[in-house]
C-alpha cells in the first residue's frame, strides 16, 4: 500500500461507519485530490460529504470549526502547507481556543490535513514547514506522519478524537510503499522507536526521518556504535517519556529536522534535554536542520538548503569523533 492509499483507506473506513464525517477542501472531490488522498471518495459518499471548496483557505478551516460546533466531524484538506497560512487566523484564534475559552463546553472534533516541506523545485512559496509555529499553539494537537502504517492509524485516531488536530503529511511521502499492520495497538500519537540502539539517540519525524534511517549504517560503521532512531509522531503534545528513556540509555542526542534551524521544532527537544537530562548526557546535543533561507528553485541550491543523507551522515560522524565516539 502507498502512503496516500493508507490515508485514503483510513478516511474511507471511518466515513463508512459515521455519516457525520465530511471532507472539505480544494479539488478533493471530482478531481480526486491534488495528491490523490481523497480519490474515489466523492463517488462513494457524494458531494454532500466530499465538498469541493473555492480557493478560500480561511473559510475551509473556519467552516470546519463551524461544522464541528454543529455536530459534524470535518476533515479539512489544505493543498499545501503554505496555503494554510491564509487559515492561520482560524486555526490559532478559533480552532485551538474554543474548548478552553468555553471552559470545556465546546469541543471540536476536527482535523486539518496538509502536506508540507521541500519536494522538488517548487520554490519558496510551496516548500515550507510550519510545525514549529503550530506546535507552539496550546490546544492544538499536531501530528506528523512518516510512514504507511502510522499514516493509517494516526489519521484514524485524529478523526475519532474529540480534539482539533493538525495532521501534517509530506509531499515526497505520498508514493512511499509499506504495509499496514492492522493489529498494531501502539498509540499513534506517541513516539515510536523505529530502530533500537545503545549509543546515540537520533530523534526525527516526517520525511527527513527516511534520510536519517538511510544514514544510520554509515554512521554506525564509522563510529563503531549503534544508533537508536525515534520517530516523534506527535509534535504537540510531545512524548517526552519515550525520549527520556532512550536518551538515558544512550547518553547522546541528535535532533534532525528538515525545517530552518532558527526557531525550528527541534530546538524544543534540545532545550528540554538540556534542562531535564543534562547530567545524563555524555556529549552536547547535535541539531541538524535546514538553512535559514527561503527555499530556492535551483535544484543544487534547494538540496543545499536542507539536510540530506550525505550531510546528516557527515555531521553526525564529525560530532561523534569530536565527542569521544
Amino acid at each position, binding site marked *: 500500500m502507498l502512503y496516500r492509499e493508507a490515508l485514503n483507506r483510513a478516511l474511507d473506513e471511518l466515513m463508512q461507519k459515521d455519516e457525520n464525517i465530511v471532507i472539505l477542501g480544494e479539488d478533493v472531490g471530482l478531481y480526486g485530490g491534488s495528491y490523490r488522498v481523497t480519490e474515489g471518495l466523492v463517488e462513494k459518499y457524494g458531494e454532500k460529504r466530499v465538498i469541493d471548496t*473555492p480557493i478560500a483557505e480561511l473559510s475551509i478551516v473556519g467552516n470546519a470549526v463551524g461544522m464541528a460546533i454543529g455536530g459534524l466531524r470535518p476533515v479539512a484538506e489544505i493543498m499545501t502547507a503554505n496555503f494554510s497560512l*491564509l487559515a492561520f487566523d482560524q486555526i490559532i484564534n478559533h480552532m485551538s481556543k474554543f474548548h478552553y475559552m468555553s471552559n470545556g463546553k465546546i469541543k471540536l472534533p476536527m482535523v486539518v490535513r496538509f502536506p508540507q516541506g521541500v519536494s522538488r523545485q517548487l520554490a*519558496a*512559496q510551496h516548500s515550507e514547514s510550519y510545525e514549529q509555529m503550530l506546535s507552539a499553539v496550546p490546544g492544538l494537537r499536531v501530528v506528523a506522519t512518516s510512514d504507511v502504517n502510522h499514516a493509517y492509524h494516526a489519521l484514524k485516531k485524529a478523526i475519532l478524537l474529540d480534539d482539533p488536530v493538525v495532521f501534517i503529511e509530506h509531499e515526497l511521502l505520498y508514493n512511499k510503499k509499506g504495509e499496514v499492520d492492522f493489529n498494531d495497538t501502539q498509540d499513534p500519537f506517541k513516539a515510536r522507536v523505529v530502530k533500537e540502539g545503545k549509543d546515540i539517540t537520533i530523534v526525527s519525524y516526517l520525511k527527513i526521518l527516511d534520510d536519517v534511517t538511510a544514514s544510520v549504517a554509515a554512521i554506525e560503521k564509522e563510529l563503531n556504535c549503534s544508533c537508536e532512531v525515534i520517530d516523534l509522531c506527535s509534535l504537540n503534545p510531545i512524548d517526552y517519556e519515550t525520549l527520556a528513556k532512550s536518551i538515558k540509555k544512550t547518553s547522546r542526542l541528535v535532533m534532525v529536522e528538515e525545517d530552518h534551524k532558527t526557531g525550528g521544532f527541534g530546538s524544543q527537544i534540545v532545550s528540554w534535554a538540556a534542562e531535564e537530562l543534562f547530567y545524563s548526557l555524555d556529549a552536547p546535543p547535535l541539531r541538524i536542520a535546514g538553512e535559514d533561507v527561503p527555499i530556492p528553485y535551483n535544484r543544487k541550491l534547494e538540496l543545499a538548503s536542507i539536510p540530506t543523507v550525505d550531510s546528516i551522515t557527515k555531521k553526525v560522524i564529525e560530532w561523534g569523533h569530536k565527542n569521544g565516539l
Partner: protein
Amino acid sequence: MEKLIAGDIYYLMYLGRAFEYKAKEHYMTGDISGFLHLDIGQEALSVAAMKAFEKGDVFTTYREHIMAIARGMEPKYVMAELFGKASGVSGGKGGSMHLFDPSHFFYGGDAIVGGQIPNAVGCAYARKYQGNLEGVMVVFGDGATNGGAFFESLNIAATHKLPILFLCENNEYAIGTNIKRAAPFKEQYKKAEPYMLTKAIDGMKADEVYSAVKEAQSLIEKGHGPIFIEAYTCRFEGHSMSDANLYRSSQEMKHCKARDPLPYFKEKMLNSFNFSQEEVEALEKKANECVDEAVDFAANAKEPPLEALYEHVFYEELNNVVS
C-alpha cells in the same frame, strides 16, 4: 490599433506559444522542474493586455512567462530562469512561478492565489500618493475571485479611488474545479459591479483585449479610479505539467481550441492590418529563432554558485543597520 502594434502583438503571441511548447519539451527532459503552468491558448490576453498597458506597474500570477516577455523581459533570461540558471531573471532562485523585473515594473510571478491583489492595491496607493496615475494592472484567475483578498481589495481600491485595473482571466477552471462549482455565477465581474466600472470581453481576441485595456488605462490615468475587466479565455493544456486535464471532455476541448487566438489574429493581420502572407511568415520565423536562441542560451548558462543560497535573505547586511 495601428499596424505596427498589431505586428508586435502577433509576433509576441506566436513567440509566446513557441516559448511555452519549448518549455514543455524541456520539462519532459528534466531541464525544467517544479510546477510549470503553461499559458498556451491564452496568449491574446497575456500579450495584448501588456502591450495596451505599457505604462504603470504590473502584478500577476504563476502563469506569467508570456506576460513577462510581452512586458519586455528578454525570452532568453526568462528561459534561463525556468532552467534555474544564474542569468535567469530571478537568478535561478525563483523559477517559472516567480519572474520579477522591477526595471519593467513587473512584480511577479506570485504563486499564492489572490496574494498579489492586495499588493497591487498597495502599489496603486503609493503611485497615487506620488501623484502618478499611470495605473497598476493586476492579473488574476477566476479562482482568485472567491477568496477574501479579492473582496477586500475591491473595497479598498474603490474607497480610495485608486488607479488600478483588475484584470480577471476567467478560463472557467481553478485546477480541476469549474467556476460553476465554486461560485454561484460564471461571470466574476458581477462581484465588482457594486464597487467600480466593469467590462466583460472575449479574452481570446487580441484586438478586443487591446482596446478594452487601452481604454481602461486612459480612464485611470485621467483619475477615474479602479476598473474591472473580465476576459473569458480557455487554456489548452492542463493546469500545470502535473495535471492530466482529465476533467474536460474532448468535446469541451474541441470548443476551446476552436477559439484559438492565433489563427483569429492572423486573419486580422492579413485582412484588417494589410500584412502580406510573407510578412507574417517572416514574423513567425523571427519568433521561432528567438525561442531557439533562448533555449540555447538557457541550456549553456551557468548554475548559480552555492553562495547564492545565502544571498538576498536581507537587503542590508546586519552590521550595516543603524538604529
